[in-house]
């Protein structure tokens, strides 16, 4: 099986680009691929714990926890995250915190890379 490194920049709530990244990662993990996800930019807001899942909004927390449980590796850009006022103890358990080179290292190991831009 292969290794997939996804980079995701767009934010979570109501932004369906984020939902796309989650569902793609899920489908790849289900097929036995090894998946890592890097959050930068607005997507780092998705690692805040205790998101209230309202029906009108998609949520970041539920799919992230499900992916982590499946062995998908998830890492948030520390600078982007603290700039948004979210500290590590406030974030979802199991999400890694690192600098941008974490993503480049996963890209190094990956067979396929998908960088999803957009704000």
């Amino acid at each position, binding site marked *: 099986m*292969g290794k997939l490194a996804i980079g995701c920049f767009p934010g979570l709530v109501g932004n369906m680009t984020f939902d796309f990244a989650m569902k793609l990662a899920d489908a790849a993990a289900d097929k036995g691929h090894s998946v890592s996800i890097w959050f930068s930019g607005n997507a780092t807001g998705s690692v805040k714990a205790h998101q209230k899942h309202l029906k009108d909004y998609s949520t970041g927390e539920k799919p992230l926890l499900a992916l982590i449980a499946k062995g998908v590796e998830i890492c948030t850009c520390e600078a982007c995250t603290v700039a948004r006022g979210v500290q590590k103890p406030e974030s979802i358990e199991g999400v890694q915190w690192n600098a941008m080179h974490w993503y480049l290292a996963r890209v190094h190991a990956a067979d396929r890379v*998908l960088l999803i*831009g957009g704000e």
Partner: protein
Amino acid sequence: MKLGVFVSDFNLTVDTLDRLKAEKLGIILVQNGVYHATTKVSGKASSLLDKTQNLYVLSDDVQIRGLKVEDVDKRVKVVNYSDIVDLMFNDYDKTAWL
């Protein structure tokens, strides 16, 4: 180069797809990009569909918009998330999100 390109908008602000060359080009229509496959503008199908024979559209993103799989242009193959993973690993060696 075998390049799989994701298109997520109907009204594209970049002309990158017009300029990029690839021996094998795949276009995967997702999000608002699905309208390229389903919707004619003033009766004319999207010019994106002329760029390659390897066209795919994400079924979920068609259906969430109230569109039907029957509305999809015959040139475009309807796929799901799992199919996209296979396309990425088996049919293309690089993928881009424009």
